[in-house]
């Protein structure tokens, strides 16, 4: 069953971007409040928890949005899709440059006995454990899983962000979830969902 979550109206994002393109700085403030936290969360997961780099990526992605604003055509794409695509590419570039990238070819079945990420609260433990498990996935699998199951995007939108087919998205998310489930299985009892 698809996982959905409340998304800001994309047409409003586009209207705000056009308003900014026409010189309205308050529109940029609203867009930052809407998109900034989501892009930062996504970039943080893509960069395996490197918050400082994730902030740089978020700033750069938003800067590119500001620059393209005057040329934005309503209906050409969703603003959030465009920003996530830019952010994803920036993250992948940084991972490759730093040698931290895990290409799909190197993807192995997850090992047992990964150290659990312990935190005080159960929900925080689960979220932290998920982030730790996500960090072990190949970049593209992680990207697809985060966009699908945390950002709540549909497969066609993810395909647009990642510049691949929807079938490829389905394959990546299925493999990613299989790997995540295996990593997290070891923590089943500890985290209280079994």
């Amino acid at each position, binding site marked *: 069953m698809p996982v959905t979550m409340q998304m800001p109206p994309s047409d409003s994002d586009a209207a705000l971007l056009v308003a900014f393109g026409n010189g309205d700085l308050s529109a940029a403030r609203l867009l*930052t409040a809407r998109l900034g936290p989501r892009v930062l969360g996504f970039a943080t997961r893509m960069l395996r928890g490197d918050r400082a780099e994730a902030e740089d990526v978020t700033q750069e992605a938003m800067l590119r949005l500001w620059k393209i604003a*005057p040329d934005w055509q309503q209906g050409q794409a969703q603003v959030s899709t465009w920003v996530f695509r830019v952010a994803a590419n920036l993250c992948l570039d940084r991972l490759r440059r730093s040698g931290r990238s895990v290409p799909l070819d190197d993807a192995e079945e997850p090992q047992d006995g990964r150290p659990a990420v312990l935190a005080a609260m159960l929900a925080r433990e*689960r979220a932290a454990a998920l982030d730790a498990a996500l960090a072990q996935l190949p970049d593209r699998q992680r990207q697809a899983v985060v966009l699908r199951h*945390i950002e709540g995007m549909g497969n066609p939108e993810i395909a647009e962000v990642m510049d691949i087919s929807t079938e490829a998205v389905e394959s990546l998310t*299925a493999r990613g979830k299989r790997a995540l489930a295996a990593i997290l299985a070891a923590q089943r009892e500890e985290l209280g969902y079994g």
Partner: protein
Amino acid sequence: MAERSDDDDTLAVFFDAARDRPGDLPDDLSARILADATAVLSARTGRAPAPPRGWLAALGAALGGWPSLAGLATAAVAGVWIGAAQPVALEAFGLTAGPAAYELEDLMPAFDDLASEG
């Protein structure tokens, strides 16, 4: 629709936990992003965006700007002058009798006896 797999059941609580933790945007990052927006806007228009107005300027704008404020000031000065100036025209009609023109019985006849007894 794709079938729900065991993986979905296993991961559902983890994804729920991740979604229930909304990210926040640090103030300094928000300020950096908006500074970029301001710079982009300035570079394109060739001038800096107008700074935010103070409350006095906002009040003036709400009242209709400087022309309205000038009218308001004129009306206020006129009101003060009308209130303070001697009503000469009324004196001509004998309508400006002062307090000395009236006795107590004119104002409160029932108290006249009481007042005279002391």
